[in-house]
C-alpha cells in the first residue's frame, strides 16, 4: 500500500519529476541494435521517458540518439535522409550528425548558415549485447557504464528481446520481484493437479530481503518437504528498473539466466527488454520465443495482447496450464497490464510475500526524494559496483543453513546497517 503522493513519485518519470530526473542519471537500454541495423538506413522513431526520439546509424556505423523534432520547424527527423554521416530534415534540409551538431542548412541565405550554431538535442549512445543504450542526463554527470555479466558474453550465448508492455514500468518491475506468483500464474498444469516444478510446489515461499549498494536482493525460500531440503531462488534487483532472474537449477531452464529492464516509454507504457544468456550453450532463440510467447508486430507490440484478451483459452486452463495463456512473458504482461495503466497502490491488500515489492518501492521513492530535495545520488551510481559479478542464483541446501550463507553477498556491495 502506498499513499497517493508516494504512488505518484514512484510512477511519474517525465523530465522535471523527482524520479524522472533521477532516471536520467542512468545509462538506459533504449532500443535493439536490430532496429537500426543498416548504416544509412531508415531512422527509427521511439519514445523514452516521455520524450519522442529517433535513433539512426550513420555511414560509419555509429548510432545517434536525438530528439525527433527538427530544431528548425519541429518536423520529424524520422522522415529525413540518412546519408553521409548525418540525418537531413525533409522539410528544409537541415542536417545533423550523431552528436546533434548542425552540419548543413542549405535553405538559409548566404551568410546566415546555422552550421555550428544550432544543435539538435542529442544523447550519448552505446551498444552492448544487442541493445543501444542512451544517457539522457547532464553531460557532467554521466555515470560509468554498467557492465552487466551478460554484456560480455560471446555472440550466440546472449540474446536480446524487446516487447511493449502497456502499463507503467513500476508494476512491470514488481511482477518480477514477486516469486510467490510463479507457482500460480506460470503453473504448467491445471489448477488442482500436481505441480510440475519445484517452485510450483510450495505456493507460499518465505521471502527475505537484503539491501545492497545497487538496490536489493531477495531470497524466496521454499521447503522441499519430500527431500528434507530448502530451495531458494535469489533474485537481484538493481535500481532503477533492472531485475536478474535466477535459473531454475533443474529441468529445461536449468542454466537459463535472464535479465530484465523495464524502461519507461512514458507513464503508461514501458519497454520490456530482456536478455537471455547461458554460459554452457548458445541461446536457443526459437525455444525462447515459443516459451515466452514472444510473437510481436513491427512495433514490438505483442500479438497476444489486451485487445484480444491475450487469446486466453479456457479449455487450455482445464487441460494444460493454469493461465490458459501461451507464453510466460505474455502471462506476466497480462496480469501487469490488467492492473491498469498506472496501478492504484492505495487500494492494494499486500501480504508477507510482497515484502520484496515493498522494499523496492521504498528504495525507489526514497532515492527519488533524496535526489530531488537534497541532490543525493544513490550508491548504485557510484564507481565501485562490480557489475559483472552480480548474479542471480538458485540453491538447494539443508535446514541448518540459509540462503545468505549459500549465496554470500559481495563485500563491495554490502551496506552498513543504516545504509
Amino acid at each position, binding site marked *: 500500500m502506498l499513499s497517493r503522493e508516494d504512488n505518484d513519485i514512484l510512477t511519474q518519470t517525465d523530465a522535471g519529476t523527482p524520479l524522472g530526473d533521477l532516471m536520467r542519471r542512468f545509462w538506459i537500454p533504449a532500443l535493439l541494435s536490430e532496429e537500426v541495423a543498416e548504416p544509412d538506413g531508415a531512422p527509427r522513431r521511439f519514445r523514452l521517458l516521455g520524450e519522442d526520439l529517433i535513433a539512426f546509424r550513420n555511414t560509419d556505423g555509429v548510432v545517434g540518439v536525438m530528439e525527433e523534432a527538427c530544431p528548425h520547424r519541429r518536423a520529424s527527423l524520422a522522415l529525413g535522409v540518412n546519408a553521409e554521416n548525418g540525418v537531413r530534415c525533409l522539410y528544409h534540409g537541415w542536417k545533423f550528425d550523431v552528436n546533434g551538431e548542425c552540419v548543413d542548412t542549405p535553405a538559409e541565405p548566404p551568410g546566415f548558415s546555422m552550421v555550428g550554431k544550432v544543435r539538435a538535442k542529442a544523447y550519448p549512445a552505446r551498444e552492448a549485447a544487442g541493445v543501444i543504450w542512451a544517457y539522457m542526463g547532464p553531460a557532467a554527470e554521466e555515470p560509468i557504464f554498467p557492465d552487466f555479466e551478460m554484456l560480455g558474453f560471446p555472440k550466440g550465448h546472449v540474446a536480446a528481446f524487446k516487447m511493449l508492455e502497456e502499463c507503467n514500468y513500476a508494476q512491470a518491475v514488481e511482477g518480477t520481484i514477486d516469486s510467490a506468483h510463479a507457482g500460480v500464474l506460470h503453473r504448467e498444469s491445471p489448477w488442482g493437479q500436481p505441480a510440475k516444478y519445484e517452485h510450483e510446489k510450495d505456493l507460499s515461499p518465505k521471502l527475505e530481503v537484503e539491501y545492497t549498494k545497487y538496490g536489493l536482493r531477495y531470497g524466496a525460500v521454499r521447503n522441499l518437504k519430500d527431500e528434507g531440503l530448502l530451495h531458494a531462488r535469489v533474485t537481484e534487483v538493481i535500481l532503477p528498473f533492472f531485475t536478474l532472474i535466477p535459473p531454475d537449477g533443474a529441468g529445461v531452464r536449468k542454466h537459463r539466466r535472464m535479465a530484465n529492464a523495464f524502461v519507461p516509454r512514458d507513464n503508461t507504457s514501458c519497454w520490456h527488454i530482456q536478455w537471455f544468456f547461458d554460459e554452457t550453450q548458445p541461446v536457443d532463440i526459437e525455444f525462447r520465443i515459443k516459451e515466452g510467447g514472444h510473437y510481436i508486430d513491427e512495433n514490438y507490440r505483442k500479438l497476444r495482447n489486451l485487445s484480444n484478451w491475450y487469446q486466453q483459452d479456457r479449455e487450455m486452463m482445464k487441460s494444460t496450464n493454469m493461465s490458459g495463456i501461451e507464453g510466460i512473458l505474455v502471462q506476466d504482461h497480462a496480469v501487469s497490464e490488467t492492473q491498469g495503466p498506472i496501478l492504484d497502490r492505495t487500494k492494494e491488500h*499486500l501480504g508477507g510475500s510482497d515484502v520484496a515489492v515493498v522494499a523496492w518501492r521504498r528504495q525507489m521513492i526514497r532515492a527519488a526524494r533524496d535526489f530531488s530535495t537534497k541532490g543525493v545520488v544513490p550508491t548504485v551510481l557510484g564507481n565501485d559496483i562490480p557489475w559483472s559479478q552480480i548474479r542471480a542464483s538458485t540453491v538447494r541446501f539443508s535446514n541448518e543453513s540459509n540462503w545468505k550463507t549459500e549465496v554470500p553477498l559481495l563485500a563491495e556491495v554490502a551496506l552498513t546497517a543504516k*545504509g
Partner: protein
Amino acid sequence: MESLVALSDVRADVLHDVFDCRPETLLALADRVDQSVEDIQLVYREAEMDELWRAVSINVMELQHTRAAPEKLAFWLEIKDEVMRIHDIVGIDLDNTLAALALRQLASRVSAT
C-alpha cells in the same frame, strides 16, 4: 527459515505474520517497531503494517457487506485511516518511536470496544 512466531517474539530482523487486528497483535507489532532502527528492519515492519491494514480492511468489508452495525463500521473505518497513517510513519518518516506509540494507542482503542 522462520515460521509462525509467538506474539511475544520481538525479533526485528525477521518478517512476522500479522493475521488479525487484536490488541495483543498490535502490541506485539509495537514492540517490534520499537526494536527496528535499521532500514531493512523498518521495511519488514512496513510489510507487517501492510498485513495489518489488510486485516482491518477485511473487517471493514465484512461490516459493509452485512450493513448491520453502522457505528462499528464507522469505528473500523477510523482505525483503517489510523493504520495507514502509522504505516507511513514507519515507511516514510522512519520514526519507529512515534509509530510504536501510535500502535499502542491504537491497541487501547481497539481493546476498549
